[in-house]
């Protein structure tokens, strides 16, 4: 396969996904068989895309010229795979494959009476659309793929058509994302009216001339594009739809959304802000705005997650917090784009590194939760407990994912968070506001730990509640493999940051310009086992996971030696509840109580997350509801009229004669009045 051209690879991958979608739609009889069909087609596409990504990483940017041109529009279907796209081409099929494999067994059990047609074709199309978004180099087709992605994911959110709340969440998702998409479209068309072409390079030139001739318009365009992208990413205050929509989809789909689709908002911001607008005052200003809103997202998203007891909603709020980290870093990068190449590159690398890591542990958490849902049939944290003993592998994966997202070393979340802090603190020496934002990031990192501790403590540890006589055991192998694969990546990317950093350095050079980004050794030092950040004159920060792990091992050995040499015997006992005998369920510590005083204290500090309410939706639904305003009123009024008539027919002859007498009198009276 490696002798294929890049064009063939990309088209074959698209082909595999689209044919897969058609095939799964056509032979959708049995959930399991359709699922394996989807897995095969996704796997083929994944291999092709990984080869393409590998080629882009080793041989540089791959350009695929005009497959299709709309002359009158000035749009042509062109693709470009640079190193930033390559990162996504590695992540998206990986997450897609893991979640599709996971879905085989999960969906078979959780189908809710739906046909496989409602799931697999759309899951495959979503992967295809996302690949299209990250590779197209023409704004028109970028938008087409973007729209396809939104529509397909909307169908997946809409999966459970019985549940009114979920259907409502799907509609909300539909409207909000389309308003956002409209923002992107307006900006694209405005730029097109200057450039006459939708190609990224032409649009970038057009934006440059707009920025010179009409700075206000340039600001408006930037704002429109950013609103379009960060809404998709779920940034505060545009992310209110996310905690309603993501949990509505089936767990493997939620995992795929969190791992891939959410991140495309960040991709959009990076592509557009850096490539279209360049290093100007405009990017500096908007960089600050994004950074501040990112920090707000981190704060409000994560602390709202702490309040939530439905575990999928909790994770969805946490996504908003995690997106905040990436946007904070990207915002800082934009802010320093004009003044400091080192800081700008460092922050961008940190942000995209966090994105990669997030695309591994966030889906993993959704898969863990899906496994728990698969076993218990519930998502309420307060009704769970003690699952760790029954599902040891899921527990292990969940602990790795939780420690990664909370940024505990040596897992991958720490490496990227550490880089984000470093870039913010180093930036803080020039712009003190970033010190504050960095503090928010560190504090909320602890809050993330609290959120995940709450989940772990409630779901996997403690006493088991009454599961209604269900026998709960570890999930099937095909659901275990994706969890293990994602967990391994979380560990590897944390232990060996160099793997990610070398790729990220290349991506940053592609986005910012290779002359702009300082050399790898200047930025991260020459040790392969860690990162050494230099500032003027000295070392600013160091993180060497290899040494830390070695030290931890030595420390553990010392502790174990102390344990093993102790002349103590060991015995099993029962838990001690202050001398009382207690049933397991009586002494179960419910999730809601975890860090309750902290939650109460903080509820006063920050506003509740705004829920998006679009009045026009309600109006539209009212207009379309013919039953509501036409049929039902007519029937009701007609019924009332016939009621009145039938009431006069009492069936008593005397009454009828009385009516006749009254009638005769009335007619006579009328005649008398008329004739006179």
């Amino acid at each position: 396969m490696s002798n294929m051209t890049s064009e063939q690879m990309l088209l074959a991958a698209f082909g595999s996904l689209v044919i897969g979608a058609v095939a799964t739609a056509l032979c959708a009889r049995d959930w399991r068989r359709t699922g394996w069909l989807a897995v095969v087609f996704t796997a083929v596409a994944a291999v092709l895309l990984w080869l393409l990504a590998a080629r882009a990483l080793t041989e540089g940017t791959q350009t695929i010229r005009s497959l299709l041109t709309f002359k009158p529009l000035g749009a042509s279907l062109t693709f470009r795979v640079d190193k930033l796209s390559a990162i996504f081409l590695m992540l998206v099929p990986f997450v897609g494959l893991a979640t599709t494999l996971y879905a085989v067994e999960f969906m078979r059990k959780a189908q809710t009476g739906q046909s496989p047609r409602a799931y697999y074709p759309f899951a495959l199309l979503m992967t295809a659309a996302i690949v299209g978004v990250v590779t197209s180099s023409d704004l028109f087709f970028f938008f087409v793929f973007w729209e396809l992605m939104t529509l397909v994911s909307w169908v997946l959110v809409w999966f459970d058509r019985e549940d009114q709340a979920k259907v409502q969440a799907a509609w909300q998702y539909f409207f909000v994302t389309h308003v956002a998409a409209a923002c992107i479209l307006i900006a694209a068309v405005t730029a097109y009216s200057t450039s006459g072409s939708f190609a990224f390079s032409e649009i970038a030139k057009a934006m440059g001339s707009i920025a010179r001739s009409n700075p206000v318009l340039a600001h408006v365009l930037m704002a429109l594009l950013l609103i379009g992208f960060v809404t998709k990413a779920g940034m505060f205050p545009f992310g209110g739809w996310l905690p309603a929509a993501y949990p509505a989809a089936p767990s493997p789909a939620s995992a795929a959304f969190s791992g891939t689709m959410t991140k495309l908002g960040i991709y959009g911001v990076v592509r557009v802000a850096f490539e279209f607008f360049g290093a100007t005052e405009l990017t500096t200003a908007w960089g600050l705005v994004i950074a501040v809103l990112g920090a707000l997202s981190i704060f409000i998203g994560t602390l709202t997650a702490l309040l939530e007891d439905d575990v999928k909603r909790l994770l969805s709020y946490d996504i908003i917090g995690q997106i905040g980290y990436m946007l904070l870093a990207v915002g800082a990068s934009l802010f320093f784009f004009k003044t400091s190449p080192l800081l700008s590159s460092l922050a961008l690398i940190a942000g995209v590194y966090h994105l990669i890591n997030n695309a591994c542990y966030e889906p993993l958490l959704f898969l863990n939760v899906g496994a728990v849902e698969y076993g218990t049939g519930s998502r309420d944290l307060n009704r769970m407990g003690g699952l760790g003993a029954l599902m040891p592998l899921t527990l292990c994966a969940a602990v790795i994912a939780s420690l990664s997202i909370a940024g505990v070393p040596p897992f991958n979340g720490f490496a990227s968070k550490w880089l984000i802090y470093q870039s913010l603190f180093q930036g803080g020496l020039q712009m003190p506001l970033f010190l504050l934002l960095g503090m928010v990031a560190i504090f909320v990192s602890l809050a993330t730990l609290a959120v995940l501790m709450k989940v772990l403590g409630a779901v996997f540890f403690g006493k088991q509640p009454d599961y209604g006589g269900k026998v709960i055991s570890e999930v099937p192998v095909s659901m275990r493999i994706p969890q293990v694969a994602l967990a391994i990546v979380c560990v590897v990317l944390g232990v060996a940051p160099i793997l990610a950093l070398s790729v990220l350095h290349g991506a940053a050079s592609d986005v910012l310009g290779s002359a702009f980004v300082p050399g790898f050794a200047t930025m991260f030092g020459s040790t392969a086992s860690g990162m050494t950040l230099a500032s003027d004159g000295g070392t600013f920060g160091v993180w060497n996971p290899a040494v830390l792990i070695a030290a931890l091992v030595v420390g553990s050995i010392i502790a174990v030696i102390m344990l093993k040499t102790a002349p103590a015997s060991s015995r099993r006992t029962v838990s001690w509840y202050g001398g009382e005998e207690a049933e397991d369920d009586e002494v179960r510590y419910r999730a809601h109580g975890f860090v309750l005083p902290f939650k109460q204290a903080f509820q006063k500090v920050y506003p509740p997350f705004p829920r998006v309410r679009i009045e026009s939706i309600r109006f539209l639904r009212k207009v379309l509801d013919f039953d509501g305003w036409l049929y039902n009123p007519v029937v009701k009024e007609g019924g009332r009229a016939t009621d009145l008539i039938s009431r006069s027919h009492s069936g008593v002859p005397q009454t009828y004669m009385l009516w006749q007498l009254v009638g005769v009198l009335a007619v006579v009276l009328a005649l008398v009045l008329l004739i006179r």
Partner: protein
Amino acid sequence: MPVVGAIVNGLLVLLLAPLFDGVMRKLKAVIHSRKGPPFTQPYRDLLKLFGKEDLTPVGSVVFRAAPVVSLAALLVATALMPIGTNKALGTYGDAIVWIYVLSISAVALMLGAFASGNPFAYAGAGREMMMMLTVEPIVVLAILAGMVKAKTLLLGGLVDWQLANGATVSMTVAAIAFFLALQANVGRLPFDIVEAESEIVEGPFIEYSGPRLALCKLGFYVRQLMFALLFVSLFIPWPGVDVTAVAVVLALVKALVVLLVVGLIDCVVPRLRIDQSMTYMSRVLFVALGAVALALIGV
């Protein structure tokens, strides 16, 4: 050289931490007008515990591994920080790494507490989390004030800057903030809320016994000495001594004085509720923020 320094740091703290606690116990006895146990009592307690039966309510690996990982993380943290001018592994991990390594220890204890399944342990773990949430930002801010000055996040670099530039207003304020949070960091009254023997019977440690309880106790002593040593090395490094060994001994002596003050406070104040503690910490946070602000304006 860093490896030797790391071993020195780790062993020094591991071996001396119980002794420092013994001195604090003696001080407590003196205040109570008692004779009190000998200085070596903590060692004897630990030895006794190592010989006691290990009773476990659950067979969970997490429960059994937690004290080991917790102590190991604390030892790594001591190896990462400077004692006196012995910078040990400081060139492999900076202040942020140090703080997160400490969080490994806390996470291990919390997971161990969860795994025990005891509701008292759950309550203790929740309190541990809340204490972390409110105390750690203060430590970070105090270090950030130093970072603004020294333009580095290496703990060793901060010590060097302090030695080269002498006392400054901002670093003094940072030291005050750090000291106000120290009592909580070492788990002493009025902030021994996590263990709170009389309310939640040792909280996270309730189900531990024998050798594993000994590791938990040792971890407590190590943490206590480590924070005192960091405080004196970072905020009161003077007078600078050229010989590393002398500097280390000097740091230990200063740490003893600091711990005696900590012990004194421990004797005379009652325990706060967790919400009162959070209110207190949020005020100290402003002191720490003030330190960073002062550092930014260059005093």
